[in-house]
């Protein structure tokens, strides 16, 4: 992954764009697993829409990462020819979909972080990234609204849905810390986490859900390629056909 030709700042920029691209790609892959199995047809359409947005952002980000790297890798080389130790996505996006409540909690958490980050990047000095982010921030707004709507419906729906939604929030909350880290390097985005929490917490309150206590377990590692056991299975499926035909065009 290290590219000696690049200077430190360029490596950091490459890693950042790659990390955001990987987040979007893996999220798209997971969301697309819902295809033809959503709770109703409208939701089949909506989840496919969100998956398509994530996939679209992933393609732009990975293409740009490839250009920054200057090693001749395009979106497909980056998506299909790395193994899990070289992927830079946060752990949250690679976790299994679980039930619909878990998927919505994942999306709520992810879209909140993506929206904050894309908004910042859209106003940043990297014109190319700003352009990608300006498009993506609108999409994230829709994703966040959709996830928030379902979080409230499920949290404030039936006893069963409340129980499931609370369980999903409790299980995924620890992954929010890594989600808010600076994607180009290590832990420590505490300010960003407060911003994140300021968006998510009111949604949970409206949903009559208990906001988990701060602190505690905070699994990390995705940004340095130390993933969960789930990612390599996801990649095996994602990459199987591409890898079976080296050098082929599709």
């Amino acid at each position, binding site marked *: 992954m290290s590219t000696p030709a690049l200077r430190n700042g360029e490596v950091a920029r490459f890693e950042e764009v790659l990390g955001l691209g990987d987040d979007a790609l893996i999220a798209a892959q997971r969301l697309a697993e819902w295809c033809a199995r959503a*709770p109703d047809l409208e939701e089949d359409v909506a989840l496919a829409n969100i998956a398509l947005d994530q996939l679209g952002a992933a393609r732009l980000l990975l293409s740009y990462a490839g250009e920054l790297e200057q090693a001749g890798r395009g979106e497909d080389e980056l998506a299909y020819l790395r193994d899990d130790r070289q992927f830079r996505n946060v752990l949250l996006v690679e976790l299994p979909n679980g039930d619909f409540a878990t998927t919505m909690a994942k999306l709520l958490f992810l879209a909140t972080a993506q929206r904050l980050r894309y908004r910042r990047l859209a106003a940043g000095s990297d014109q190319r990234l700003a352009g990608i982010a300006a498009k993506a921030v609108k999409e994230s707004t829709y994703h966040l609204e959709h996830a928030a709507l379902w979080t409230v419906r499920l949290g404030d729906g039936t006893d069963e849905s409340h129980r499931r939604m609370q369980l999903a929030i409790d299980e995924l909350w620890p992954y929010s810390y890594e989600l808010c880290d600076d994607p180009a390097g290590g832990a420590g985005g505490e300010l960003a986490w407060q911003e994140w929490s300021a968006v998510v917490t009111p949604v949970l309150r409206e949903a009559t859900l208990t906001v988990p206590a701060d602190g505690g377990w905070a699994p990390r590692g995705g940004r340095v390629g130390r993933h969960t056991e789930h990612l390599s299975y996801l990649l095996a499926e994602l990459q199987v056909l591409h890898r079976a035909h080296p050098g082929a065009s599709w």
Partner: protein
Amino acid sequence: PPADDYFHQVIAADQKIEPRDAMPEAYRRTLVRQIAQHAHSEIIGMQPESNWISRAPSLKRKAILLAKVQDEAGHGLYLYAAAETLGVSREELVDKLLTGRQKYSSIFNYPTLTWADVGAIGWLVDGAAIVNQVPLCRCSYGPYARAMIRICKEESFHQRQGFEILYTLARGTAAQRELAQDAIDRWWYPSLAMFGPPDSDSTHSEQSMAWKIKRFSNDELRQRFVDMCVGQAEVLGLALPDPQLRWNPDRGGYDFTQPDFDELFQVISGDGPCNRQRLAHRRAAHDEGEWVRRAAAAYAAKSAERRAA
């Protein structure tokens, strides 16, 4: 009765029957059955293709395929909405699908074994669907005709994408070319069977023609499809698996081998390779979504109550 007179005048004048118009009960039932079967086909048809979304060989193809399957869910929504104008609810129809009392297109009971099948479905299955459906854009029932116009536009887009997949494979490596030919070999006859039994055996056709729901016979449409495919297969550089295929200048169409209608009836009756799998998948998705739909209803009721208070 005068109401029926109006109906027959509209049909005769090639105008549209609209939801509030009086119509013969048999016409209504025929349409409900046909539109529902069509809607179910879109929904079940999502399965064989979504089988390859996770494994699509490039990100661009993944996006195109995902968008296509999403379109099918959208088509399902239009069509259920069109059926609802005839006084049935989507829930009723879905229940009939899940309990096997209404059918969906038998073509979706074949498995997608390789990526090339995604191309073959686009080219042949969507191609056959278009040949079937273009005349339905002029169907006598307004909401159905309008839904079909929108659907046909998207379907022809899908068909082009499928053709493109096969075109790329046919010009790719030897292994890719083999995948493409293998897919066409498996999908050709099932696609021909999509036009239904031969006219000599077709049960519902005559009345549907009179009502201007159906405009052409099964065999006419099948011939049109074959004639269309031959040239396209040449462009692809792939063979259609029919040694009997040859131009007949007297008829102005291609002679071809009929599909195995015994197999078609077997698949229709429930014994295709994937009938059980497709229905089980749909039932499982429906059952697993039950608590979500219930929660949404409960929340909507609470919200309405709060607004009222």
